[in-house]
């Protein structure tokens, strides 16, 4: 089996691995690099649990081949908090009781992160749209929407 080199930054840290050609980024992250925060809920691109941020864009790591990410900057949910301090979105998810089983949570937080990076003060419709590729079976979505709106409000208050 042909091994190919991949090199990218993951949550700011340089990563270089030899992987089997054709390996998805999801498998590379989870099985080779050891970041299990992206979840393989479907491997079809229909659940959003594996969402990561690649060069500022939300992507599904289950449908992305790792070797197409050479030189990229990748962010996962495990890399959001800094120095043990939770990211405002993570804080908001806690405060809003927006997690139950937690399996969709990393993907939801990735989707919300990209939204707030581009749209610091989103409307409810914009939040709904941003989360629309991510399935949650426990919460009924409302607490998650509220968490994102709350994080946005706290962001804008901090900026003000």
């Amino acid at each position, binding site marked *: 089996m042909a091994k190919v080199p991949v090199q990218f930054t993951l949550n700011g840290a340089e990563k270089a691995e030899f992987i089997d050609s054709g390996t998805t980024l999801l498998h590379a992250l989870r099985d080779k690099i050891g970041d299990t925060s992206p979840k393989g809920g479907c491997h079809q691109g229909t659940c959003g649990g594996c969402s990561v941020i690649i060069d500022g864009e939300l992507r599904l790591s289950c449908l992305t081949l790792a070797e197409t990410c050479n030189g990229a900057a990748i962010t996962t949910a495990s890399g959001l908090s800094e120095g043990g301090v939770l990211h405002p*979105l993570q804080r908001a998810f806690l405060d809003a*009781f927006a997690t139950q*089983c937690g*399996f*969709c949570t990393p993907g939801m937080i990735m989707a919300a992160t990209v939204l707030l990076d581009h749209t610091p003060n989103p409307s409810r419709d914009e939040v709904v749209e941003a989360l629309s590729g991510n399935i949650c*079976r426990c919460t009924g979505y409302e607490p998650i929407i509220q968490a994102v709106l709350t994080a946005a409000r706290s962001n804008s208050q901090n900026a003000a």
Partner: protein
Amino acid sequence: MELRKSYFADQRKDDLHEIGQPRPRSDSPGHVTGKTAYFADRNFPGMLHLKMVRSPHHHARIRSIDISEAEKHPGVVKILTAKDVPHNVYTILILIQIGPEDETVLADGKVRWKGEAVVAVLAETERAAQEAAAKVKVDYEVLPAVFDMEEALKPGAPTVNEYHGRNYYLYDSGECRKVRFGDVEAGFAGADHVLEQTYQSSPIEHAPTETTGCIVVPEGNDRFTCYTNTQAMFFTLDNASIILQMPGNKLHFVGGTVGGGFGGKVDVIVEPIAILGAKLTGRPVSFIYSREEEMQISSPRAAEKVVIKDGVMNDGRIVARKVTGYTDAGAYSRHSPYGAQKGAGHYPGPYTIPNVWIDTYCVYTNRTPSSAMRGFGVTIGDFALEVQMDKLARLIGMDPLEFRFINAYRDGDMKAHRQPTEGAALIECMQEASRAANWPVAEKYLSMSSYAKGV
């Protein structure tokens, strides 16, 4: 959410420190940082991947299975068929003495539903397992299949499951679980109106975001650790012990946080075969359902048919209720005989009715076996009951909410299964709903209480 503490205030102590407090969840910080460990967040050196070859037919005889090409495929380590499974015919509720054993771990001579497990392939990579699975040759003789419960119950229908020999589960009470209370025919005869209606549902998937699966690791001391997302650790361990004819002390089950269950992870379906694979290869084995398998192979909530016949008086009293419930178990029992029985214990719903007749059937068809799901045995019954209540109210020209007050059970009322009602609160829920939804009802209903009449 609002807590309405005015109701039942006399029955509740409010001197507690921790109970009733909205403490933050201890697991949430792990969830939001992606640090919570689910069973699949483990990777073991040399781990094999198990892929299942499944039946493409709804009902077929297996003439032969040829694994010779698949065995030679690069990366394949072991291929399992029925003969490799020590106790291949099992049923999960045997642990609570509900038999007979009626399901094969790997199909033996016959498949009874499309998607049934036939051959298990263990390989170095998922891809190698998929490729080898495509090379397994199974020669089938397709048999007539039956999908409709009514058809299945007719004489001459194809027999779905020979371990039962008939297309329904045989209870100690006969072909159905029965509840008999009062004289339902006399009730109908004396009723102002009789209404019989049929309700139907189709199978529903739990659809947890994390699919069913496990990883089994041989510990080198003849013990096997099974990291699993089962909803019932010992239930699964004990069934695996029976299927594998392996003493329970050889098995160590480790769960943890599960990515949603909703009843979908109470079947014992991935663990025994993965443990067997680990035992026969001496290597860690991962068997995780694909999303496609989760959607169409894992047991759904059963389809149900519910026929309700009610006798009702013009003053709003329901005087007789006859319910015939059919649970579509699919090809195997799993938890369905229990679910159908649970329905019998639930009807006629939270209402006090003097004459009740309940029959609930568990029917076999050539479809994915159904099993437990959130509201097991009750959810579809409640749909049927509460739509029927709406129809009855309109039939006699009464407000649907007021109609329910008239019939609501209260403490001390005798239920059809002959237990006195305790701790009722239906009336209070309806009173509060009347206010919250601005759905006015007569004052006499707002002053009712679930406490025993006259108290």
